[in-house]
């Protein structure tokens, strides 16, 4: 363990620049975007410095910590605002700041016509700060701060154009769904504190050895809920598609490359919990497997290019989650897929943004077609990303995805076959829907309006795309050559150097199987989309309908949560007035009524008053008599 003094800059720089841009207001309009981009770049620089410094250290000295200040200290609960940069977090830091900087650059051009560009960059920097805090926090609570911070950033950015009610609603939906997940994280923290008396990763790890299975499973389940919320996993997946309301760079950075993968980070970071609880692991792999298919199926039916990519993201994160549930060997592959995915998916999103930029913000792929001719660079970079996500060797996805499928099969027994089968099937469907995107957008015949004048994007936009495409091509090879990433992460996620003793199938066979199903998927798509009608056909199978409707996830949520919730709310509002306040009014009414009744005794006749007195005397006498009994 090394102490560092630089870590705080990673967060402070973007945070303060964001605050500055927001506080200065319109004064900063002219230079705000440049300033923000420079800050992001400098964060990346700091990250690189730290990375090389870490590489220079060996073994146990690699992780670096920095205590900034004592944050919360009550009773036995001590939480410092302190940061931890270890082999795992540095991967994220580099990804976030690297891709983040590229997207800053891209956005300068993409948002150039927007009146509020400065605000956009402020949000972006805020996101970077929060995301870095998420991966750098040394305790679950610090992580939680970043966790909700990125949620807020995501909310702000999805709703960047919140003058459109639908966009504002999408933002709100994302935040609320994330909050459901946050409940999970809160619970995990509470259980951890109750069990271990601490919420630092190190402390919990230490305690996990002696903890009961039930406690560990509970923490695991809670963490999984959190991950599902943030990473759009089943059953909290529904917000991601709507989140595409945000500007495309946001979709690329937050809803593809970084924030949505935070769930994977969380589970990987908590490996000591999951490794000790098979039940929790089972839940994780189930969620991963379901989501990877779920996302893939939705992806096949989306005509909105961004939503198709979003479904794909969901599915790909499903792979990562699946991998994290596979035990110590899986984490590294999950992270590897996360990193490669970060390149190719961000690249593709930026590509999509580039297409939209040239097409008057048209997102319907049925109105594209043959765009490669007018936007060759975009088409090329997108194509490279496409190959990467399919898992065509030697592109990045091949190295990461195949490993996950292979590890899934190796899980053993029926579980292994099920998981492996699901992963394999997912690969086939991925091939289908990604090919569909390519066919609909870049090849075939042009179907766009006459007034749309597609043109290649400026260099500020295509350069980042190119860099990411390069990553899509090379990252897989680089990360896996000589087990680079696996070894790098081993001290964190696989201390005991576990390996699956027996292989269900030899790696080569798995790769071949994967390639075969991918080929089938591609072929099907190419065949099916020879011709593309401008309007989506309506006489389609129930499956297509279901896929178009996101497998009815929104209808389900509406029917099960939203409408009953609304009923409950309006019911309670009525109850509050009628019952609770009504009870009070009733007391008032009773007093008022008895008061009116009492008035009638006061008849005004002196003789009746005398009679009352006589009755009073009699009552007194009776009481006296009673007392003496």
């Amino acid at each position: 363990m090394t102490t560092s003094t630089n870590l705080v800059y990673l967060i402070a720089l973007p945070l303060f620049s964001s605050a500055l841009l927001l506080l200065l207001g319109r004064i900063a309009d002219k230079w705000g975007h440049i300033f923000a981009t420079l800050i992001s770049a400098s964060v990346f620089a700091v990250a690189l410095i730290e990375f090389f410094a870490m590489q220079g250290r060996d073994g146990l000295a690699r992780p670096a910590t920095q205590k900034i200040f004592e944050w919360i200290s009550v009773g036995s609960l001590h939480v410092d605002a302190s940061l931890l940069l270890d082999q795992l977090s540095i991967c994220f830091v580099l990804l976030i700041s690297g891709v983040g900087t590229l997207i800053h650059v891209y956005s300068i051009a993409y948002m150039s016509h927007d009146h509020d560009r400065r605000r956009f960059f402020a949000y972006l920097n805020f996101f970077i700060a929060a995301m870095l805090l998420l991966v750098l926090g040394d305790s679950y609570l610090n992580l939680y701060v970043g966790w909700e911070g990125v949620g807020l950033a995501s909310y702000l950015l999805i709703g960047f154009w919140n003058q459109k009610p639908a966009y504002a609603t999408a933002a709100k939906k994302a935040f609320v769904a994330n909050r459901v997940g946050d409940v999970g994280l809160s619970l995990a923290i509470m259980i951890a504190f109750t069990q271990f008396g601490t919420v630092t990763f190190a402390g919990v790890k230490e305690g996990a050895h002696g903890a009961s299975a039930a406690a560990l499973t509970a923490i695991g389940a809670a963490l999984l809920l959190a991950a599902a919320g943030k990473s759009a996993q089943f059953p909290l997946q529904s917000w991601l598609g709507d989140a595409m309301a945000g500007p495309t760079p946001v979709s690329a950075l937050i809803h593809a490359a970084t924030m949505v993968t935070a769930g994977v980070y969380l589970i990987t970071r908590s490996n000591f919990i999951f490794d000790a609880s098979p039940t929790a692991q089972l839940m994780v792999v189930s969620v991963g497997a379901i989501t990877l298919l779920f996302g893939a199926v939705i992806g096949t039916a989306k005509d909105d290019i961004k939503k198709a990519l979003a479904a794909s993201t969901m599915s790909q994160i499903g792979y990562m989650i699946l991998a994290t549930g596979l035990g110590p060997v899986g984490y590294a592959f999950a992270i590897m897929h996360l990193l490669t995915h970060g390149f190719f998916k961000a690249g593709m999103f930026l590509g999509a943004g580039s297409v939209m930029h040239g097409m008057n913000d048209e997102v319907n792929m049925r109105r594209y077609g043959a765009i490669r001719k007018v936007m060759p660079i975009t088409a090329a970079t997108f194509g490279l990303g496409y190959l990467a996500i399919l898992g065509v060797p030697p592109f990045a996805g091949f190295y990461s995805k195949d490993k996950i499928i292979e590890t899934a099969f190796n899980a053993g027994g029926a579980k292994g076959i099920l998981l492996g089968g699901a992963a394999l099937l997912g690969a086939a469907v991925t091939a289908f829907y990604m090919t569909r995107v390519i066919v609909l957008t870049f090849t075939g015949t042009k179907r766009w309006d006459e007034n749309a004048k597609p043109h290649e994007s400026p260099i500020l936009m295509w350069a980042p795309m190119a860099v990411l495409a390069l990553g899509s091509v090379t990252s897989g090879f680089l990360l896996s050559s000589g087990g680079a990433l696996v070894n790098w992460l081993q001290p964190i996620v696989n201390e005991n150097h576990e390996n699956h003793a027996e292989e269900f199938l030899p790696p080569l066979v798995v790769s071949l199987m994967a390639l075969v199903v991918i080929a089938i998927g591609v072929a099907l798509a190419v065949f099916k989309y020879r011709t593309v009608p401008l309007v989506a056909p309506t006489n389609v199978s129930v499956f297509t309908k279901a896929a178009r409707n996101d497998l009815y996830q929104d209808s389900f949520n509406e029917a099960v949560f939203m409408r009953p919730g609304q009923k409950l709310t309006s019911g309670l509002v009525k109850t509050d007035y009628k019952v609770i306040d009504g009870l009070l009014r009733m007391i008032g009414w009773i007093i008022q009524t008895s008061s009116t009744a009492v008035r009638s005794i006061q008849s005004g006749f002196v003789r009746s008053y005398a009679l009352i007195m006589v009755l009073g005397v009699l009552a007194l006498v009776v009481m006296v008599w009673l007392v003496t009994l």
Partner: protein
Amino acid sequence: MLTSPKLDYALLAPILIILATAILGVLVEAFIKQALRARLQLTISLAGIVIAFEQLYRVRNQGSSMAAITSVSIDGAGIFLQGTILVLAFVGILLIADQDHFAPQASALPGSIEEAAALESGRAQTEVFPLTLFAVSGMMLFPVATDFITLFVALEVLSLPLYLMAGLSRRRRLLSQEAALKYFLLGAYSSAFFLFGAALLYGYSGSLSLNGLTDAIHGGGGNDVFLLLGIAFVSVGLLFKVGAVPFHSWTPDVYQGAPTPITGFMAAATKAAAFGATMRIFYVGLDAAQWSWKPIISVIAVVTMLFGAIAAISQRDIKRILAFSSIAHAGFLLTAVVSLNQSGLAALLFYSVAYGLATLGAFGVVTLIRDSAGEVSDINRWLGLGKKSPLIAATMSLFLLSFAGIPLTSGFVGKFAIFSAAYESGNIYLVVVGVLASAIAVFFYLRIILMLFFADASNDSVSVVIPPLLTRVAIFLSAIVTILLGLAPSILFDVAQNFAYFIR
């Protein structure tokens, strides 16, 4: 050899001075010419009260002595109550001084030519002053009397003038006369019960004095039926005077019909005197038989507190509201009676000053709110007065808050003292009921404040007259004391505590 009885004139002097002043007032009424009368009567009355108070102050340390052959016991509580009554009477007379409230010739037929003529020529009679002083003398005697004859005489001396005074209103003569009639008939009725009860107790003990009664109870052997019936009947007389349920019926009608300054004086001073006597009879005479009357008085206290609070809610006439409020307060004071401890007595002493002055102040304010036909006691027509004359509205609110027992007013301290005495004596349920009744009562006090301040003025001619100087002084004094006793109750409470004892 016969010796003349030792009367201790010094101790009796305060009462005698008031009586003498009253008689002087009668003479003035008879012999002094019209134009000077009112002013002279006022001067004499106030002077008499001041001198009486001065004498009382002089003998304040000679408490614990019996006077008039043990018929009167000048003890701490007695002196304090006499002082209280004098103070209340003083303030009351300041209010009464505004002759505008009184019929120029009470005996004249309402609306008759004589009445109009008397009014026009300014030949108004001012018998109200001596009447007041006679009543005061009775009130002063009532709480110090130690035998039933003296008690009865004092009761009548205090009551008879009040019956008349209730009928003296200048406006709404019929109502005023009706009030006088009701008050008189019911008052006489209750006195008869009191007297018969006294007779029964005499039958039980063979003695007319409270001490003799106690001795007899201790000694036993008497006929318990006489004792119990006697207690019941004597209680009727006392409970009538304090306005406890079910002997309260006269209160709202008389309060409403009587001239407002008289209502104020009556409500404040009678309550002090009657509770003083009640305390003495129960503490000194019937302490030994507390098993018999404590439960009954407790029940009456409970019923009275709740009844007063609830009944007031649907009232719309300020004087009737204050009447029911006084019933509720009688309930609180009965709580102090059943506490049967020194704290209860001290609380009662303090309360009678605090409540009395606030009552005088409140009725003083009522006299100011008028239209062309005289006072407006319908609170629906008080709407928005806070806008027209904030100071008067604020003063009225102060008194109402004191009645409601809101902290920083004298009423709160009084209530607190009474409840703690009750709690101390173990009657926790009385505290709880008291608290609930206060909560109900708060409603109608606050509603008046609400009407004064938060409602818009109704479009009619109700206005606040510019107060005559003496009324202003009376209201001002009451308000000052109400606040002062709220902020620094010690100045009076310590005194009350020192004086809170009876001798046997």
